[in-house]
C-alpha cells in the first residue's frame, strides 16, 4: 500500500494543473529554492521553466497585485507564502483589488488567483510566525477560503481552487504537511461535497477543520474506550460555509463541540458557526454548545509557555466529559514534544 503525504499531494496537484493549463503561473519566496517550499514545489521549475515558476523579491503587497494583474489577463496564478503572517502586508491588494474586482467592474473580468498560506506552530514560531487569520478572509465578500485536513482534500481542493475563476485563500497548517494517506485515495472529484461528515457517532457532534480535525481524530480511540462516540464534521471550506451538515447531525446528537483550535476566539469561524446555529428555529440542544479556541493572546515563543498556550488533548477530553456528562479516564498525553508535529521533526521550520 503506497502512501502519499499532504505536501506531496499538493505537489502532485500543482504539477498536474501546471501541465493541464499552460497559462498557470506559480510564484512566491522559496518556490525555487533548495527546500522547495516544504517540498510542495519540487520539480516545478524544471518541468515548467522559470517564467511560469519563479522566486520573487520580498514584496508581498506588490506581488499580490501582480498576481491579480496576471490573473486578469489570462494567467491564473498560485501565489504562496511560507507564513500567513507575511501576507498581512498585502491586505490592500487582497481586499480592495482581488476580492472586489469582478463585482466592482460589473462582472467584466475576474481574478482566478489561489493564495497558499502556511500557518506555523510550535518550535518557537512565536507571535509573528504562527497566526491564522481565516476569519479575516472569510469576513470579506468576494473571497473563498478552504482549509483541508487530509492529503486527498488538499489535492482536490487545490485543484478546484486553481480552476475557480475567483480568488481562493488556501490555508495549510504546517503540521499537516507530513500527514499520510493511501495514494489511491488521491483522486480528483469535481463534485465533492465541501463540508463532510467524516466519522459517525451518537453522543455529540464535533465540528473542526484543518489541524483540529486531526486532533479530534487523535482522541477518537480514548473516547471509544470510554464508550463515547461522535459525529465528526470536517468543514474543509470555511467560506462558503455549509452548515446544513451540522444541523442534520445536531438533530441526532443535540450536543455540539466546535474545535477551532488554530484561531483566536473573538469573531472566529467558531463564533460564526454558533451564531448561525443559534438563529435557527429547529435546533434544540440539551446543553449549551462548546467552542474551543486558542486563548485571546498572541503566541509566545518559549516552549515552556506554548505547552499551556495550545490546546491539549486532555483539555478537549475534559470538555467533552462535561458536554456528554460522562467521566473520561485521561491518559498522560501531550506532556512531551507538544511543540513539534512528530518525533522526526527537527526545528526550526
Amino acid at each position, binding site marked *: 500500500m503506497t502512501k502519499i503525504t499532504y505536501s506531496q499531494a499538493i505537489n502532485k496537484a500543482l504539477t498536474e494543473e501546471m501541465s493541464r493549463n499552460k497559462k498557470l503561473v506559480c510564484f512566491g519566496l522559496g518556490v525555487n529554492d533548495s527546500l522547495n517550499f516544504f517540498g510542495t514545489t519540487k520539480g516545478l521549475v524544471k518541468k515548467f521553466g522559470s*517564467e511560469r515558476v519563479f522566486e520573487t*523579491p520580498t514584496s508581498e503587497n506588490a506581488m499580490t*497585485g501582480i498576481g491579480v494583474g496576471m490573473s*486578469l489577463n489570462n494567467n491564473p496564478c498560485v501565489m504562496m507564502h511560507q507564513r500567513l503572517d507575511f501576507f498581512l502586508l498585502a491586505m490592500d491588494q487582497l481586499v480592495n483589488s482581488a476580492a472586489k474586482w*469582478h463585482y466592482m467592474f460589473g462582472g467584466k*473580468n475576474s481574478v482566478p488567483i489561489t493564495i497558499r498560506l502556511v500557518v506555523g506552530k510550535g518550535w518557537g514560531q512565536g507571535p509573528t510566525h504562527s497566526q491564522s487569520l481565516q476569519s479575516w478572509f472569510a469576513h470579506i*465578500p*468576494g473571497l473563498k477560503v478552504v482549509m483541508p485536513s487530509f492529503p486527498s482534500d488538499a489535492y482536490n481542493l487545490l485543484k478546484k481552487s486553481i480552476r475557480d475563476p475567483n480568488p481562493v485563500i488556501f490555508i495549510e497548517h504546517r503540521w499537516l504537511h507530513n500527514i499520510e494517506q493511501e495514494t489511491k485515495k488521491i483522486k480528483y472529484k469535481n463534485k465533492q461535497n465541501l463540508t463532510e461528515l467524516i466519522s459517525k457517532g451518537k453522543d455529540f457532534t464535533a465540528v473542526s477543520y484543518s489541524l483540529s480535525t486531526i486532533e479530534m481524530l487523535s482522541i477518537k480511540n480514548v473516547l471509544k474506550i470510554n464508550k463515547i462516540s461522535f459525529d465528526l464534521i470536517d468543514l474543509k471550506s470555511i467560506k462558503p460555509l455549509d452548515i446544513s451538515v451540522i444541523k442534520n447531525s445536531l438533530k441526532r446528537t443535540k450536543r455540539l463541540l466546535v474545535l477551532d483550535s488554530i484561531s483566536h476566539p473573538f469573531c472566529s469561524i467558531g463564533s460564526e458557526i454558533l451564531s448561525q446555529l443559534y438563529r435557527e428555529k429547529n435546533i434544540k440542544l440539551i446543553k449549551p454548545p462548546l467552542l474551543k479556541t486558542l486563548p485571546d493572546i498572541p503566541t509566545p515563543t518559549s516552549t515552556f509557555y506554548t505547552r499551556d498556550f495550545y490546546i491539549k488533548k486532555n483539555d478537549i477530553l475534559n470538555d467533552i466529559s462535561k458536554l456528554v456528562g460522562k467521566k473520561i479516564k485521561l491518559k498522560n498525553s501531550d506532556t512531551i514534544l507538544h511543540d513539534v508535529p512528530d518525533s522526526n521533526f527537527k526545528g526550526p521550520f
Partner: protein
Amino acid sequence: MIKKNFFKKIYEIQKKIRVVEEKIASQYSKNKMRCPTHLSIGQEAVAASSGLALQKNDISISYHRSHAHFLAKGGSSKKLFAELHGFEEGCSKGIGGSMHLVDLKNNFYGSTAIVSNSIPIGVGLAYSLKLAKKKNLVCIYIGDAAVEEGVFFESINFSILKKLPVIFICENNFYSVYTHIKDRQPEKRKIYKLASAMGATSHLFTQDNPFKLFKKFDELFKKIRKNPKTHFVEVETYRYLEHCGPNDDTLLGYRKLQDVKKWKKKDPIDFSKKYLIKNKIFKISQINNLDKKITNFVDKDFNYLNKLKKPQFKNISKLVYKR
C-alpha cells in the same frame, strides 16, 4: 498618419475630454452623479497624447483621476456618463462609479480608488504580455502622490527585474488633495530621477505642446514594444478645479491664484488651437466646426441618460463571485 489627420486627432481627443469633463462639472450640482468625482480639466494633454500613441492592444490602467485616460484609450463617453449616474449601462454597471472605470474592448483594464493600488496590477498585466510573447506594452498612469506608497517601489522593482514592457506615466500636478508636494517629498528631489535610480529608463516631458508630447510618447512606445523594458515618464501638469468635485477651489487658499493663472495661460488646448491656426493647418472656422461637433456629440451622449431605467440591486447582488 497623414499630417493633417494627426493634428486633428490630437486636438480632437483633448477637446473631447475637456468637453466631457465640463459637462460633468456643469451637471454635477444637480446631485444626480452621486459619487466622488475627480476631474482632470487642465491635465488632458497627457492622457490625450499618450492615449493616442497607444495601440489598441496596448493595455492601460489608471488611478482615481481617470476619466481622461479612459476616454483617450477609446472609452465611450456614454458609458462614462451612465457610470457616473449609476445606471446599469455604465462601463462598470454603476457598481464602480467614477473611480472604477473599465473598457476591456479597448484594453483599458481599470482604474481604482486607492492610491497606487492599480500599479502592481499593471505590472502583472505586463508579465502576462511577456508570457504570451506579445509585442505590446502596459501604460500605468499615476499621480505624484503614488510614489509615496511603498507598493510603487515594489512594483517598479519587479518590473525592471523582469524587463517588463511597462511605461509609467506620472502626472505631477504638485498636489495630493490640498497638500503640496514639498510637504510630502524631499525638496529638490525629482520623481523621474528616483525612478531612474530604481533602474527604469526615465524621462521628463512637458505638456505645453501636445503635438510634440504625442511624438515623444509615440517614439518611446515604439521603442518599448521593440525592446521590452521599464520606462518612466514624469509630466508636470495642473488641475484647474478642486481635487474632488466640480468647483473652482482657489478661495480655499491652499494654492496661489497666480499659479492657477500661470497654468491656465499656457493651457495645452488653447495652445493647440492657436498652433493649428498659426501654422495654417486648420482655419478658425474649421476648428469651430470641430468644437461644435464635439459638443453636440457629447450632449447627445449625455442626453441618452434620459432613456435609461433605474437599475435594481437584485440584478447585481449575484456578481460578487463569478460562476
